């Protein structure tokens, strides 16, 4: 039995999801017999952590602050072991542009893209180059903030005239935005979990199948009732193996640890194209990683136990993250 601080909430736009993830993790940890201290992360985090003096921290935060290495860095300083990926991996994954560069350099498939900073667009006239860039990437494009894992700020640009408004929306979330070639394919989420003694293993794949007409409405695609999730996804053995292989390779390349969810599109040519790696994916009742674990016969308590145990013996403080 350990004393576990569950870090949840925080100031990010994904606060609500994080509170649900955190509450669910707390319940599981209590059932596992641990002493649980829930901390809604705010400016008094340091003080709360000193007060709680936990043996280990379970980070159930999503979005900037919690998933980008900030909290992980603080925990390193305090010498408190924590769940999930280390500082470096979190920083790489929360910046989609950095992550895509790392994947591309390692030879892993990810859709073509162009990235801009706000300064470039505003002060250096990079906007002039948009026409040529869009021509290179081909429409439709997906325009997204470089940080943030949720659907917020992600827009489709079907034609060049859609691009300026889409850029402005994405810039509302981050100073850096990317224009990514949209690949019309099946949406897959491959979860990876560290297995005791066996290293990281890929779980059964979840496919997100949008229902109805609002295909281009990203918010709808994350909304229960407007998207159907199938797990395990109906894929042939070689596609499944290839998607899992690519997911594990991305996990390694980005230096993730403990658990993660890799989102990808299965392109019509059969090749999975990696969109992003979420170092702390949602752990709510409707989240994809718990669904995938369940399909592998790992219930939520066992999932929580494994994530926690990966943190304790070999603290990620010593990992290269």
């Amino acid at each position, binding site marked *: 039995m350990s004393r576990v601080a569950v870090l949840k909430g925080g*100031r990010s*736009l994904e*606060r*609500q*999801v994080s509170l649900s993830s955190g509450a*669910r993790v707390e*319940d*599981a940890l209590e*059932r596992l*017999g641990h002493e649980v201290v829930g901390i809604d992360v705010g400016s008094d985090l340091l003080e709360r952590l000193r007060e709680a003096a936990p043996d280990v921290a379970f980070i159930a935060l999503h979005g900037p602050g919690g998933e980008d290495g900030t909290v992980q860095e603080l925990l390193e300083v305090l010498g408190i072991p924590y769940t999930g990926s280390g500082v470096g991996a979190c920083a790489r994954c929360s910046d989609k542009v950095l992550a*895509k560069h790392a994947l*591309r350099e390692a*030879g*892993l*498939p990810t859709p*073509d893209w*162009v*990235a*801009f*900073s*706000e300064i*470039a*667009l*505003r002060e*250096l*006239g*990079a*906007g*002039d*180059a*948009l*026409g*040529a*860039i869009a*021509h*290179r990437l*081909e429409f439709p494009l997906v325009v997204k903030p470089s940080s943030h894992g949720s*659907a*917020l700020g992600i827009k489709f640009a079907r034609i060049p005239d859609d691009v*300026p*408004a889409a*850029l*402005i*929306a994405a*810039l509302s*979330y981050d100073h*850096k935005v*990317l224009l990514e070639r949209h690949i019309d394919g099946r949406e897959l989420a491959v979860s990876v979990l560290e297995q005791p003694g066996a290293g990281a293993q890929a779980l059964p794949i979840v496919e997100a199948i949008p229902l109805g007409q609002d295909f281009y409405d990203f*918010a709808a695609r994350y*909304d*229960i*009732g407007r998207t159907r999730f199938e*797990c395990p996804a109906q894929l042939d053995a070689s596609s499944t193996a290839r998607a899992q292989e690519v997911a594990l390779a991305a996990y390694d390349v980005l230096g993730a640890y403990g658990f993660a969810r890799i989102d990808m599109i299965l392109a019509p040519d059969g090749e999975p194209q990696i969109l992003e790696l979420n170092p702390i994916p949602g752990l709510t*009742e409707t989240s994809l990683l*718990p*669904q995938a674990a369940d*399909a592998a016969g790992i*219930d*939520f308590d066992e999932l*929580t136990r494994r994530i926690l145990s990966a943190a304790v013996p070999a603290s990620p403080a010593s990992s290269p993250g």
Partner: protein
Amino acid sequence: MSAWDGTRRPPRGTAHELERYTGLFAARTERMRSSAIRDLMAITERPEIISLAGGLPDTTMFEPEFFRSLMNGVSNDSLAQALQYGPTEGLQAVKECIVELMAAEDMPVAADELIVTTGGQQAIDLVCKTLLDPGDVVIAEGPTYPGAVPAFCSYEADLVQIEMDGDGMQIDLLEQTLDALAAEGRRPKFIYTIPTFQNPAGVSMSLPRRRRLVALARERELLILEDNPYSMLRYEGDPLPTLRSLEVPRGSRDGGDFVIYTGTMSKILSPGIRVGWVVAPRPVLAKLQLGKQSADLCSSSLAQHFVAAYFASGDWREYIELFRDRYRRRRDAMLDALATYLPEEARWTHPGGGLFIWVTLPDYIDTTDLLARALRENVAFVPGEAAFDDGRGHNSMRLNFSSSSEDEIREGILRIGKIVNEQVAIYRSLTAGKARPALPDDLPAASPGAEVVSLPRRTEGARSRSRSRER
């Protein structure tokens, strides 16, 4: 790890949890959705945020000493009743206060023509409950009160919104819509309107339009739900007659046929006490009362005793005067700040009363995304999308001026203005290039020195190289 001892909850946590409940949910819950906006709004309550998002009256002006004396009175004179259930239709003493309030606005009403509700919101809910079958059409203004949209949705109504201008709902458009619906064999069950100082638009329906709307309802035998929370918060101009008073002339014994009227104590006394009321044609009122019985038996007796004591204690008009003075100054501060800090492309309404200003930005700015950006600067508003059920309103926002100080309002608008100006500048720089000749294919996509963060070339060579490494 401790053993199960029977006092703990049984293990749960499988992914089947949700499915287990989903099968039990009523079909109407499909329409009850959480939204990106709601997730964002959850963050607006942080203390460091200047929130122009709420619709909150300023409750800091109520004297604690006065409150104590009122509650002492309740405690001395009617404690047992205040702690007891009350009649479903409301306490007689409160109904008499409401009769007095309505008389002050030229609306004669008998105490047995109204029921006390748990806020005006319950009146909306009860009217929906009484009138709507799934798929029925409800007509409302576009934009409409954001809190009414989920009420209509939860009864599976088909909401049709009629665009407004500076004189409120456009009755021509309403007629066209009614004709178009009639051609499909559909007749709306009711028209929901806030004619005076509308939430969120801040505009009032003109007198000629009010007359036409009432005539139209009579002609086509449609019910109107007139929601009137703000008419006493008037900062300029003369009062306009309510739809109810146009339908039921002074001295008439006729209770009216087509206007259901709802009022509230929320904006003239306190929203925390949750006391509102609804006046309706008697057959409708009887159904509303049955609906209320199943909803909550009766509104809080304690709150109603407080209301009765408050109205018995002196002139309720004085407190409203305090609100009006304060809110008028805050409205003026907001209008000044908007004129100072917003770009020339922005448009906003000039409310003669109420709590809200409706701002419309260029259509390339999505106010839900803008809210995410504004939250980084610790300022919040309601994105316009929340006031529509059909995706409109994406470039508008509702600003509230009653619950922040003049300094906070100026600071809040300054921050919003700064962001909007930045976005307008970016848009201009992006679209200015459009007029230039398109760049040839082989030109580097960014000129030297430009801060293009990354530009992977989509060349076949690079692609096959990366492929070969993957496999």
